[in-house]
């Protein structure tokens, strides 16, 4: 058994950064504490550099497969830590204005990052579960962080009650899978499924169904999405961005690894189930988004819709030909690409929401009327972000959806790609309604006094970077596609 502790140095660095932020919080005078974002973001980037140097070409199984350090883990480690760093910087001005305990806020974000990298690299259900809970616990606190705010309280209670409920489902599923197979290692489950293909124990099937339901709650797939809109609306906006982008990416890293390395031999049993979940999620998310009047709530439903597209990729992970499961690596490429593209576009949208909120103090859509006259830069970023989320050409969302639909077609799920395209058209409608509001409608009379919205320099830089990223990856996705390809071949070769 490999017990090479030094392999975990990047994780130690992350934990160290979190404690350093907490310690620095005690030492700094109160009015300078919001500057801790620099320490947190810097530490996150340092850990990404450390992991790149240390694990560039490793494919090691630590503790007999509890923890797998491969290209896939490396990709998600770098992606998730950089993502967290960006969210920490986006929240800089928000925290300065609205959050009284910046040290705890940033430290919890870094702890959440530790949980996320654990989820991407776990090779066993209990390890994955513990990592998932580390992420969830940090998020429970972050969601309810504004203690006096009624919306924040309500969001916190709904999130933690449904989160704990879904953990119970997940654990009951894990206990059944362990009872039926005698192992919780993905590799062991895969072996068991391959040996008993077509003749699975009912305990095992029930266990897998419960695990799907538990994970469905965590990624907010319909019909398990009820907590998402309330939680997204009530949480502090940077935390909403974190929930929508980072925690979802981590959950899909876990799902991709579990499904390819563990459950692929039983593809025939779960493919239809995941496809149906994908359809329900796409349809419900995109239809209910139309009637929203609050931008965070609308983005919440839009992100439920995006989860539907990602589940389409998961359903397309393989196809059965003559009783043999043939893996489709393109599908996991597509899911990872979509996660990256979605992260750029959604972070740009949330960064805009934060700047607008800091200025006008509301998240209602009416506050966005005539935004183009008040801040051309903000409305441009928002429009590009929404176009990319809708999947229009020249933006990264188009490329990633193209990959997803191609993968679905390759696995013989053409009907699913058709539903997804229809859902994309619906999503375009409500995204365009916001664009219309920003560019065609007039500024409401009451706000005319504070006509122009000034953008702080840091936010300006981040918004521009996210805007350029969304467009650049849309016209030149080559390098990203190569990196994603290398990462996803790592999980398939192990299966």
């Amino acid at each position, binding site marked *: 058994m490999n017990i090479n502790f030094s392999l975990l140095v990047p994780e130690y660095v992350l934990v160290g950064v979190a404690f350093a932020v907490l310690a620095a919080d005690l030492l700094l005078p109160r009015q300078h504490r919001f500057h801790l974002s620099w320490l947190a973001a810097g530490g996150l980037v340092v850990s990404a550099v450390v992991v790149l140097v240390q694990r560039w070409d490793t494919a090691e199984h630590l503790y007999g497969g509890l923890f797998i350090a491969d290209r896939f883990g490396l990709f998600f480690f770098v992606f998730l830590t950089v993502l967290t760093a960006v969210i920490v910087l986006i929240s800089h001005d928000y925290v300065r204005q609205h959050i009284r305990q910046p040290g705890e806020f940033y430290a919890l974000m870094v702890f959440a990052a530790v949980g996320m990298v654990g989820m991407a690299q776990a090779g066993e259900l209990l390890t994955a579960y513990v990592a998932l809970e580390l992420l969830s*616990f940090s998020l429970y606190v972050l969601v*309810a962080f504004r203690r006096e705010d009624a919306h924040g*309280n309500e969001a916190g*209670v709904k999130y933690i*009650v449904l989160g704990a409920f879904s*953990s*119970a489902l997940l654990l*009951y599923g894990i206990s059944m899978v362990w009872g039926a197979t005698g192992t919780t290692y993905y590799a062991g489950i895969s072996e068991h499924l391959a040996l008993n293909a077509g003749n699975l124990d009912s305990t095992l099937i029930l266990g897998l169904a419960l695990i799907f339901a538990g994970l469905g709650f965590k990624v907010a797939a319909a019909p398990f999405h009820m907590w998402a*809109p309330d939680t997204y609306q009530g949480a502090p906006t940077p935390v909403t961005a974190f929930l929508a982008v980072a925690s979802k990416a981590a959950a899909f890293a876990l799902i991709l690894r579990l499904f390819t390395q563990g459950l692929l031999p039983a593809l025939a049993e779960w493919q239809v189930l995941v496809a149906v979940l994908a359809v329900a999620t796409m349809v419900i998310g995109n239809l209910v988004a139309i009637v*929203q009047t609050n931008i965070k709530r609308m983005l919440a439903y839009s992100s439920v819709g995006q989860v539907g597209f990602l589940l389409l990729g998961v359903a397309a992970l393989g196809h059965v030909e003559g009783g043999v499961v043939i893996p489709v690596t393109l599908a996991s490429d597509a899911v990872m690409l979509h996660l990256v593209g979605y992260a750029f576009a959604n972070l740009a949208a949330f960064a805009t929401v934060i700047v607008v909120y800091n200025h006008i103090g509301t998240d209602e859509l009416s506050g966005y009327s005539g935004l183009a006259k008040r801040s051309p830069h903000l409305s441009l970023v928002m429009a590009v972000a929404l176009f990319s989320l809708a999947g229009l050409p020249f933006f990264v969302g188009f490329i990633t959806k193209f990959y997803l639909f191609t993968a679905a077609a390759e696995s013989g799920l053409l009907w699913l790609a058709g539903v997804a395209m229809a859902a994309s058209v619906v999503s375009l409608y409500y995204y365009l309604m916001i664009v219309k509001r920003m560019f065609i409608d007039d500024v409401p009379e009451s706000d005319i006094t504070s006509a122009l919205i000034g953008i702080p320099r840091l936010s300006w830089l981040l918004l521009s970077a996210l805007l350029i990223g969304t467009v650049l990856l849309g016209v030149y996705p080559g390098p990203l596609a190569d990196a994603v390809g290398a990462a996803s071949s790592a999980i398939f070769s192990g299966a």
Partner: protein
Amino acid sequence: MLELVHFQVLSAALFSLGIFGVLARRSAVMVLISIELMLNAVNVNLVGIAAFSDRAADVRVFGQILVVFIITIAAAEIGLALAIVLRVFRNRGSANVDELNVMKW
């Protein structure tokens, strides 16, 4: 004579009771207790399998390890949830889940 199936039935019954409690109870504290019931149903299942399954000893002991992990995490989770519920109670004077309706749709 006790067999594995008895534990599985007990566990399924407890789990179902827990789900019923989560759906039917008004008080957030009772909902949390119901969740605790569900988590302990999992523990009963694991302990039962660990004691009565016909697998090798090193496989069976893993069930008990899982139970220790679940107890620890569940305790932390409920502690955190109670802190948030307490916050709601202080702000609103009630901890009933059906009164948490500031946000709709």
